[in-house]
């Protein structure tokens, strides 16, 4: 189940979180909550949006995230050119 309405507070820490980066693999990260706000979705329902920073990001996870973000950027540039 996708759960974005979870009860969190600024300063909360989460360890060993796993981000599934499609074919690139799983990045394991530690997080700290930096911000939390209510946002309005397109169907006008409200949703909590949580901003987090990575803490002590491992080299392996950093490399995976770099590759994934690079791929997304290349795709975005390609779509903009078309």
């Amino acid at each position: 189940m996708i759960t974005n309405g979870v009860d969190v507070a600024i300063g909360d820490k989460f360890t060993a979180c796993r981000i599934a980066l499609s074919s690139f693999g799983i990045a394991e990260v530690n997080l700290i909550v930096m911000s939390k706000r209510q946002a309005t979705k397109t169907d006008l329902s409200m949703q909590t949006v949580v901003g987090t920073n990575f803490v002590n990001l491992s080299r392996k996870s950093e490399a995976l995230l770099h590759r994934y973000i690079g791929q997304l950027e290349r795709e975005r540039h390609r779509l903009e050119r078309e």
Partner: protein
Amino acid sequence: MLVVEEEPPNKLDPAALVTLIPAGIDVTPFTLSTPDTIARELHLLQQRRDLISVYFNRAQIWFLSVLQIIDEKHQTFSFDISVDEAQNSAFERTSHAVFAAQPGGIKIQFEILSGIKRIVDLDGGPSFQAQFPLSLINLQRRNFLRVPLPIAKPLLCTLRHRNGAAINAQLYDLSIGGMVW
């Protein structure tokens, strides 16, 4: 800095509303206070035609606006009036307004404490004009490029909540420094 915890009562186009920075966030490292840096941020907002949420009357009333003219020499800026004339009349009498925008997910917020007046802009239409703010918050916490994530192929992060429950959070943007979910 004025902050609100609840949505204001106006329900006009709530999807476009930028909420104010919540209480409890230390904005000191993100606060610009020199006229040059404030002018640069105002110019960027104006050039991109970013929608600005203008709050007044203790954040009970708000309207959407766009910056029009940034006058560095006189340290003033002008911006679109509201479509609601009653709001405009109330706004002319206010002594405190908060402006909030969120270009690219980065919160920009500043407040005006006096000197709001209605003017005729270069196109002959009505605008409001105000003095530059004394400070401006540019809440860019990350030093890395943020990428918005595709909605069609949502990226999920599995976390363990403090109550022990596993959470599958859908991510909205990602960088090497952090993520939003």
